[in-house]
């Protein structure tokens, strides 16, 4: 019997119960972000590294996101969003680690690696991603790697030592869900072969709750999303939806669904029918 959805599972040296990873970008206000994170019941939130605001002219400095995240509650997962080369991704990861070490936050140990190919589609660059993964592992990071849904790249990333492979369901922010379930299935087959607890997290593309459920029903260990919540008309409610969607998908995966048939069999018994016809 696999773990039940109430049990905790591991991602590298971390252990969580919630299988939902939520990004902190694009919320209209910090309050909406906070209530969305709460409703999502996530334990891990992603953040990005950016140049600080140099408001040395006395202008008000905008709030820092750290002022709005309960660091006792959430594990910070820094990403390398915005990086188009392995080099920049490594710089970004090291800066994140430095920040999180200063905060004595356990998120210092890991990083969500993104090496994007261009701003047009935000698709990951497989070569740069492989390169950066290797460098970051050498630097001691636990690397969670955002990648496309190619099973071969996924397998290679795991072989290099990635802590988790995070195949995309669809392009970032597209809202298209899991476009190629066959590829995700083969990724899972490769990555969990002889290693069923290896964590595979579907990252990117989620548009609505059923996308999350479908990803989890395929056997993913978790889902990472941001725009699907932040861009909804009611982000906090959609966050709650995503919480339930994760639970639904995981439980359904564990429950052994019925088979599919063109048509099937009655739910009520035939025996004892009063029908004379």
């Amino acid at each position, binding site marked *: 019997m696999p773990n039940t959805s109430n049990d905790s599972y591991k991602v590298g040296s971390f252990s969580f119960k919630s299988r939902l990873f939520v990004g902190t*970008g694009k919320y209209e206000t910090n309050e909406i972000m906070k209530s969305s994170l709460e409703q999502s019941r996530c334990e891990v939130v*992603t953040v990005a590294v*950016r*140049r*600080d605001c*140099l408001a*040395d002219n006395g202008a008000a400095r905008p709030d820092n996101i750290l002022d709005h995240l309960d660091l006792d509650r959430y594990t910070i997962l820094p*990403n390398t*969003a915005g990086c188009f080369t392995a080099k920049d991704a490594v*710089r970004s990861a090291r800066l994140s680690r430095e920040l999180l070490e200063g905060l004595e936050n356990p998120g210092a140990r890991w990083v969500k690696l993104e090496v994007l190919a261009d701003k047009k589609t935000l698709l990951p660059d497989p070569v740069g991603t492989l390169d950066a993964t290797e460098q970051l592992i050498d630097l001691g990071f636990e690397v969670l790697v955002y990648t496309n849904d190619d099973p071969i790249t996924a397998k290679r990333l795991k072989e290099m030592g990635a802590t988790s492979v995070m195949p995309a369901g669809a392009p970032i922010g597209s809202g298209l869900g899991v476009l190629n379930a066959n590829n995700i299935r083969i990724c899972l087959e490769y990555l969990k072969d002889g290693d069923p607890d290896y964590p595979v997290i579907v990252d990117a593309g989620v548009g609505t709750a059923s996308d999350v459920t479908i990803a989890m029903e395929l056997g993913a260990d978790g889902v990472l999303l941001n725009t699907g919540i932040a861009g909804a008309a009611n982000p906090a409610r959609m966050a709650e939806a995503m919480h339930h969607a994760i639970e639904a998908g995981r439980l359904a995966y564990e429950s052994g669904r019925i088979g599919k048939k063109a048509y099937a069999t009655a739910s009520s018994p035939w025996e004892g029918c009063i029908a004379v016809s």
Partner: protein
Amino acid sequence: MEKGPTMQVAVNGQERQLVSGTTVADLLRQLDLQPIRVAVEINMNLVTRSTFDNTVISDGDRIEIVTFVGGG
């Protein structure tokens, strides 16, 4: 105000003049930034927080001071 010799550096892509001998810690103070909330690179090399006080900025240095923002 600035009496001593100065140098030209880039901080987060902006050109700035600093008094020679300025350390990273000095710079953060000038910018009213809490060391605990930032990470710093000079010429693409990480400057660890414990060395902010001792790291003297050089003329022409390209300095990045970063923090966390929302991201997915």
